[in-house]
């Protein structure tokens, strides 16, 4: 066994997803059976996941045993993978990234940069604009800022020079948290097989402890099911109106995903396209089935966001879109439906 100092374990407990921590885990050469000999480890992992699902947060206690904390993280990955629930996955990743965000806020500049670099954030330290700024390669910035919905994250609000986008420490930490989320997600997906014992225990754990805390998505909180064209957003009305005279590929794609999301059946959608003189049912059926994930790559595509529709050049935003700052066509339907109730 290699010599490991506690400093390494402290790093691994704080940042178990990091390249250095993964190398440490590999160097320990522990088998799953060896880990499970300590029954408390798995118990603690289940307890933490239960807390995450209930509270949505995960506290960091710096005096806890770093080795245990580190190993527990990897057991949690196995459990989350075994549970196969996107809700649990998201809640786990969110809670973990929030905890890491707090830890990162107290870290020195060089630690942040090292961590970012290990996660693939290409950077440049610069005095360009007076103070020390971290420049992030613009492609990495785009990749990790895409889920930050505040308009202040729009690229033109940042200093940009030579392919790098300059951010302040606080903003860098925010981006780093996003990169960490991606990394944890990647680690969950990388689990090819969950050991049988953990799989069985996870199933029991789900039934006994978790199921009552998982929200049922069948509530009508975001009910957008409707066939009332009057409450469709203007872009969709435009697409419906112009089906006969030909639509661009993105407009057709948007229309199919939208109609499916509001409750149209596959046959109903195909029928809508049956207005052009050159209508070819076979081709239309093939394309619709692809978009609905029935054939091909079996990916069920989501309705594109307003931002995408703007770029597709068929956004005809009306007063409702502008007044409520609609960012997604289904949100429009939801609002209109709610106001009709």
């Amino acid at each position, binding site marked *: 066994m290699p010599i490991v100092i506690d400093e390494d374990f402290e790093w691994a407990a704080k940042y178990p997803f990091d390249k250095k921590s993964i190398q440490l885990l590999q160097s320990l050469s522990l088998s799953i059976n060896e880990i499970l000999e300590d029954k408390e480890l798995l118990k603690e992992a289940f307890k933490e996941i239960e807390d995450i699902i209930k509270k949505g947060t995960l506290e960091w206690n710096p005096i806890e045993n770093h080795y245990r904390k580190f190993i527990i993280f990897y057991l949690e990955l196995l459990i989350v993978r075994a549970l196969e629930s996107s809700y649990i996955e998201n809640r786990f990743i969110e809670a973990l990234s929030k905890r890491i965000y707090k830890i990162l806020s107290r870290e020195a500049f060089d630690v942040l940069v090292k961590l970012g670099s290990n996660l693939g954030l290409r950077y440049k330290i610069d005095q360009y604009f007076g103070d020390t700024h971290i420049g992030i390669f613009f492609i990495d910035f785009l990749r990790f800022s895409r889920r930050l919905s505040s308009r202040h994250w729009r690229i033109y609000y940042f200093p940009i020079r030579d392919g790098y986008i300059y951010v302040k420490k606080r903003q860098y930490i925010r981006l780093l948290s996003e990169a960490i989320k991606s990394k944890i997600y990647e680690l969950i997906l990388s689990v090819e097989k969950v050991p049988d014992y953990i799989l069985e225990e996870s199933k029991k754990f789900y039934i006994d402890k978790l199921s009552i805390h998982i929200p049922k998505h069948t509530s009508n909180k975001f009910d957008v099911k409707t066939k009332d064209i009057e409450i469709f957003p203007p872009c969709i009305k435009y697409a419906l109106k112009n089906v006969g005279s030909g639509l661009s590929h993105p407009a057709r794609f948007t229309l199919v995903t939208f109609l499916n999301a509001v409750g149209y059946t596959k046959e109903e959608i195909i029928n809508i396209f049956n207005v052009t003189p050159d209508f070819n049912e076979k081709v239309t059926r093939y*394309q619709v089935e692809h978009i609905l994930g029935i054939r*091909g790559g079996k990916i069920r595509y989501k309705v594109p966001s307003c931002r995408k529709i703007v770029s597709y050049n068929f956004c005809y935003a009306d007063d409702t879109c502008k007044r409520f700052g609609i960012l997604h066509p289904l949100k429009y339907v939801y609002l209109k439906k709610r106001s009709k109730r």
Partner: protein
Amino acid sequence: MKKGDLKYLRNYIKIYYQGGFERIVENVKDPHRREWALLTYDNKMYRHIRLDKDNLTKFKDLVLEETPKGLYYSASYYQNPDEEMELKGRESTDLIFDLDADHMDNIRIKSVYMCVNKECRAFSFKNKCEKCGGETRNIPIIDDVTIFDATQKLKFLISILNTYLGIPDEYIKLYFSGHRGFHIHIEEEPYISLDDIDRIAIKDLLVLDGIDIFNVRDRNAYILDILLKNLESLLTIDDPELKMLLNRIKHILTEYDDPLKALRNMRVSEGSRRKLNEYIKKKIGVEVDPAVLTDLSRLIRAPLSLHGKTGLIKKDLEMDDIDNPMNIIEKSIPSKLMAKIHVEILPRIVWAGKEYGPYYMEDVILPEPLAIYLINLGLAKGIELP
């Protein structure tokens, strides 16, 4: 278009592709990984064509047979370029910017007008029909002057790609589109790996979609940087309210210690804010075609192919060429032949370095591609060799 004109035009295209087809394919990066397509004059689209050694001749034969008005390839590289869209297996996509002169602000474009009244259809130089007083449709005519003006925006776009996004000159492949403007192709990693969301963000940066200059949080932000560099041209506006606001902003940005706070606290009505932001977007945004930039399944005109509307080549340009923009159309002419044609109407234009027009209902001898352009615009007919 008259039958005889179409026959002439198709022959013109056939002659070009007989000698130039192979060069088009050789000029394309990884042609076998792309989807190829062509659009015929009766608007039939041949799509999902894969090019490899075995079918190159077959494809050339199809091109010569159909004499297409457009020859295209996909911006994307695919595993299976000949499959339906969803089965193609996209691997990466060229980053392509399409800049059209008629979408730009402050561009000189000559126009003629055609009456929309079906009974009349008269041409005139005024936007009210001189014959029946009816509404008219604008027919813009692109000439050397238009292209000259458009290169100013093109230079601005290239400077953004170089200076801000750090894309080196050697990655930037520049083309005159053969019609209204320019295409920039970037075919190198890491840019070709950008997905559509990344490309939308780049589009926002160029077009300045959604900007609010009163809400900037970094005094070195890109938007303030380009605003300061372009303030003098922005200040040429006639609107007194916007002019006053811009002068105030200039003062704040150049004199204040904390300009961001001062900008946030400026007392400006919601309407004026919106108007000013829109004006800035229009003046210093770069009006790239958002669909070409962000749609990963886009087909793009093949470089060195003919533009069916103008008879001109989609021509590759050197950076030096955009310093001599009056030569761009001339460089894109595939044939030096002249043609006789009956022109219904044409204002004075400068085309390939020479002046033509004004013409009104007369037979003239013009360079072949100009004659073809006028036929396609509906401004001329009866093309024949002189």
